[in-house]
């Protein structure tokens, strides 16, 4: 096994065997299970909405009034919502403290109702309103012939009809837009963790002077690549693990706790998430490309930040130095993250679109803008290309300076250390390691 392979294996094992990794993954797994099955969990604890009781003082003179109300409740009752029970109150006293007293009467042939001592919630109040509105219309239309009713109905037709264009956000697009925000958060956290890890790991070796032993035995280039590859592998593995956790959660939600038993994937998912099959189909058509962009941007963006962070750690002599020097990079990452969150809300704004092409922001913004339908696929691809070129260029620039910086213990100021690192390259030991 070459020293590089050993170093890579050593660092990967150290990373994946760490208690932090195991505990984090247990928490993430449980969280994703929880999120994917939130509807089932809520239903399991939800005993249904309580029934409501309304005491009706029937001053309408219509004997059928109570039956009419009851019939509407039977017709429009929704499963799990709690029923409305109507009971006649004959000896009504104005000073009664009885709850939910509905006093119904006619005022010039128009049904009028008053609800006293209401303890109904918002939904029940709305339901009652709609029942009474329907009864009001029905009573008004009584005795009218068909033509008169049609004429009245025509009068209620809106003057302006709003026609949705093809570009108008559909339910599917709204969900995808929401998805972009949900995906941005774990992506940001993963990149930050990976980037922080590489920096912390290098600073630990440098501040303890162990770096001199390491660089005496493996070239700075191999050391650098081992660090980058470890962090990158960690990032990819963690992203895939999260994807697996999400799929396990989805599977449990659909097949174990849900009602899905057969049919197409579209149907199963649609029924599970309470969406139309057509919306789910649209989401599933769009999602693979979106996921590809998310993974590609996370990978390449992570790589860009790792390369820069490795250099920042290399010019730091201590953890205090590192905490101070890494701030500008962390701020850039935060700007990108907030850009992803708020950019999708702002819509197709020119500033948002431009920010999405800037490499330090694009890892977070571009895939979100694509999911939010602000970027087309080719705009997203252009942003990805710009990011790739920038990452490669920055790597080529930083690599020779890393060799110098990693063995230097200069105590100059941040910018002077950078200038010195780029100004000279001391290590020329042949790198033809076994």
């Amino acid at each position, binding site marked *: 096994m070459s*020293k590089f392979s*050993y*170093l890579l294996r*050593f660092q990967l094992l150290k990373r994946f065997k760490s208690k932090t990794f195991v505990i984090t993954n247990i928490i993430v797994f449980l969280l994703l299970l929880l999120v994917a099955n939130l509807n089932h969990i809520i239903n399991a604890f939800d005993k249904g909405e309580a029934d409501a009781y309304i005491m009706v003082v029937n001053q309408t003179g219509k004997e059928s009034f109570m039956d009419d109300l009851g019939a509407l409740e039977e017709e429009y009752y929704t499963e799990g919502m709690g029923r409305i029970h109507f009971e006649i109150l004959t000896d009504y006293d104005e000073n009664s403290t009885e709850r939910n007293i509905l006093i119904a009467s006619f005022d010039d042939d128009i049904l009028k109702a008053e609800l006293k001592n209401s303890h109904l919630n918002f939904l029940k109040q709305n339901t009652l309103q709609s029942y009474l509105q329907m009864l009001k219309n029905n009573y008004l239309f009584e005795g009218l012939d068909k033509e008169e009713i049609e004429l009245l109905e025509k009068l209620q037709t809106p003057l302006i009809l709003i026609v949705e264009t093809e570009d108008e956000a559909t339910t599917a697009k709204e969900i995808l837009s929401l998805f972009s925000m949900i995906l941005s958060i774990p992506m940001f956290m993963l990149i930050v963790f990976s980037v922080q890890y590489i920096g912390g790991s290098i600073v*630990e*070796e440098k501040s*303890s*002077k*162990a*770096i*001199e*032993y*390491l*660089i*005496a*035995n*493996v*070239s700075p280039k191999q050391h650098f690549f081992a660090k980058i590859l470890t962090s990158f592998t960690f990032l990819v593995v963690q992203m895939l693990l999260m994807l697996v956790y999400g799929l396990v959660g989805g599977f449990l939600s659909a097949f174990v706790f849900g009602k899905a038993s057969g049919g197409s994937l579209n149907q199963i998912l649609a029924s599970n998430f309470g969406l139309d099959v057509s919306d789910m189909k649209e989401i599933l058509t769009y999602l693979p490309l979106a996921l590809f962009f998310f993974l590609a941007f996370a990978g390449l963006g992570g790589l860009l930040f790792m390369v820069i962070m490795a250099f920042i750690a290399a010019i730091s002599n201590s953890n205090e130095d590192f905490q101070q020097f890494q701030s500008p990079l962390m701020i850039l990452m935060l700007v990108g993250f907030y850009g992803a969150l708020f950019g999708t809300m702002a819509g197709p704004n020119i500033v948002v679109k431009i920010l999405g092409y800037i490499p330090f922001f694009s890892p977070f913004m571009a895939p979100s803008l694509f999911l939010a339908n602000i970027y087309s696929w080719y705009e997203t691809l252009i942003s990805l290309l710009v990011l790739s070129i920038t990452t490669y260029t920055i790597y080529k620039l930083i690599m020779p300076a890393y060799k110098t910086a990693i*063995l230097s213990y200069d105590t100059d100021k941040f910018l002077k250390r950078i200038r010195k690192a780029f100004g000279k390259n*001391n*290590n*020329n*030991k*042949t*790198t*033809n*390691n*076994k």
Partner: protein
Amino acid sequence: MLEVINARKDYGSLTAVKDLSFTIKPGEVFGLLGTNGAGKTTTFKMIMGLIEPTSGEVLFNNKPITYNEVDEIGYMIEDRSLLTKMVVKELIIHYGRLKSLEEEEIITRMRYWLKRFNIENYENRKINTLSKGNQQKIQFITAIINNPKLLILDEPFAGLDPLNTLKFVEVIRDFQSKGAMIIFSTHQIDHVESFCENLIVLQDGKPVIAGNINEIRSEYKKHNILINAAGLEEDKLRAISGVFDVVKDADQWIVKIEDEKYHEEVFKYVKTLKNVIKFDLEQARLSEIFIDKVGEVYE
């Protein structure tokens, strides 16, 4: 064989090492001395290839040192270079693997050395829980775990008590007897005298004393006379021709003379005294030569 040929290292306008040349043969222990900032660590880093000489070259068995040769070299850094959050066993295995050794072999060698340094119970202890002296031992073990042909030791005895210093010296002598080349720097100049054959003293990056220790001492004219006698008068000693200093050291006097030939004059005076217990002529100590050449106390 290790050859440093006209090595020079500049950091901008500062010259850390200048015109440095020396050779170390198999089985030789070589001392590199100098005050702080004299260029000792820079020299070691140039040998290890951690920094490239501005001019000159370093050859190991007639070839420049590359990453192909480092497995034959052991390097102990002046500052402790240990990953202190690791367990002793993990760290030694990690460093040994970077010397291309197999894990089983490293464990066997590690247990041997831990036992030899009386720290076999610390195999599974975290480095940061060990005392400074024991950390120094671990660092020494990481430098010798690969049975190096060239052993570079930058201040190996720093922070060690006399007993452990003796253990280190024994191990260094073992490697010497096996034909290893050893170069080391130290602040304890007695060690250089006791087991170095050749040395270089650096001052401001330049060699001020170089060569075989015995030759250096014999070429150095100044001598010391150690006297233990009753009734000795310091002023009378100082008045003798060739005497340039008289120092009281515990129960004896050290009389420093410009040349060996002046000892007879001193002896004539001492003969006049009663109860002379000791009169001993010796070559100047290395530390005295050092002070004389470098102009300051070796510290």
